[in-house]
């Protein structure tokens, strides 16, 4: 206790470290001796300030002091009038320039990441939808050539993709076509023929066609004719291939 009382004068002249000051304040609460001494010694210390010769300040000083204060203040006010000032003030109050920079980078990265994530989520959803309705081969047709295309053969696949049906026809060893000649695919349903596209085979006689089936269309057989020109609604040329 005695030891702590020694710090009284250092407390009064404000030469204790923050830690020592806190310690002394706690001591002061319990020490009647220090409490009694504190006020009169503090007053004594403050009285020392009157040990000076009192002189009049120069008249010009007032203007200089006021200018010093209110010029500073004006620039402060100008800053405050800027619409961004509250944000700036908030940022400068809460963040150092370094941490503000880092925060900005983090916010930008976060936003970017968020956008990327949302985008990714959409993609995944789309993929999931597709996976939920995988493409299935519903029926397979074997095609055999006849007449001028006796060497040709092929396969047709009826695909179901969700609610959509499509037909893929793959042909091999097709004799080449001349000029406007095309092979035309027909879907046969109870004697009715429906155009399903045209094929021009490549140099090796291979051809491939994808036909998206309109809803509710069905067929029993596939026939392929060699047509003198494309886009006929009814076959004009000879049948050269068909389902077996």
């Amino acid at each position, binding site marked *: 206790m005695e030891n702590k009382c020694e710090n009284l004068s250092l407390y009064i002249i404000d030469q204790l470290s923050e830690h020592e000051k806190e310690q002394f304040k706690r001591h002061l609460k319990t020490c009647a001796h220090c409490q009694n001494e504190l006020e009169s010694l503090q007053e004594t210390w403050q009285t020392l300030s009157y040990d000076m010769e*009192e002189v009049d300040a120069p008249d010009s000083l007032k203007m200089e002091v006021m200018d010093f*204060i209110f010029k500073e203040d004006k620039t402060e006010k100008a800053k405050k009038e800027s619409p961004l000032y509250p944000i700036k003030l908030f940022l400068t109050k809460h963040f150092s320039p370094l941490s503000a920079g880092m925060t900005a980078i983090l916010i930008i990265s976060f936003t970017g990441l968020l956008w990327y994530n949302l985008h990714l989520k959409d993609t995944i959803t789309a993929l999931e939808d597709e996976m939920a309705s995988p493409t299935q081969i519903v029926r397979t047709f074997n095609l055999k050539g006849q007449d001028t295309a006796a060497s040709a053969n092929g396969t047709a696949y009826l695909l179901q993709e969700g609610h959509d049906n499509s037909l893929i026809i793959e042909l091999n060893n097709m004799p080449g076509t001349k000029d406007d000649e095309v092979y035309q695919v027909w879907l046969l349903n109870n004697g009715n023929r429906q155009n399903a596209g045209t094929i021009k085979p490549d140099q090796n006689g291979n051809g491939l066609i994808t036909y998206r089936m309109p809803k509710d269309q069905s067929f029993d057989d596939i026939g392929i004719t060699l047509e003198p020109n494309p886009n006929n609604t009814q076959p004009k040329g000879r049948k050269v291939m068909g389902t077996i």
Partner: protein
Amino acid sequence: MKNKSDEELVKLIVQNHRPALEELYDRYINLIYSFSLKMTKGDTEKTKEIVQLVFLRLWTTKRTYSASQGKFANWILTITRNIAIDLIRKEHKHKGTVQLDHNEWEKIQGQQSEHVLQEVSNNLLKQQIQEAKHQLSEPQKRLINLLYWEGYSLSEIAQLEEKPLGTIKSRLNQTLKKLRNYFSEETGGVRHGK
């Protein structure tokens, strides 16, 4: 403004009331100026700097003063002294030394004694201090001067005096008590009302 108390003026300053600041300036500028002039050993440029900083702090920090904290003059002088010491200590650091040789010390003492003789003042408080200082020993006077007016820390003074810190601490205790006892004798003691 003239009728307002110091406390009321400080409250108005907190609300950015410029005339209140000017009124406080008018009331206390001579005190603050004289005090700063002594702290800077008569350097009027540095004194101006200190005065500007004191009023700037008053205007910007919005620390409120209440009469329960003691006399306003003491409050404002504590602020002034802190600002002045900051300035002085920066210079000490700049010079890189706290050493003051004995001849220089005696020169300062000499100037001050002359000052004391020249002073003719009705300020009772000042007279009291002058008288009280006569009660002090030379080392005690030196301590108060270095500590209060020159802004040296106790350990720096221990270095200057080439004495252990403990000796300087107990010297401070004795000095403060001696002064206190003299003041209380003057105001409330046997000599009161003489």
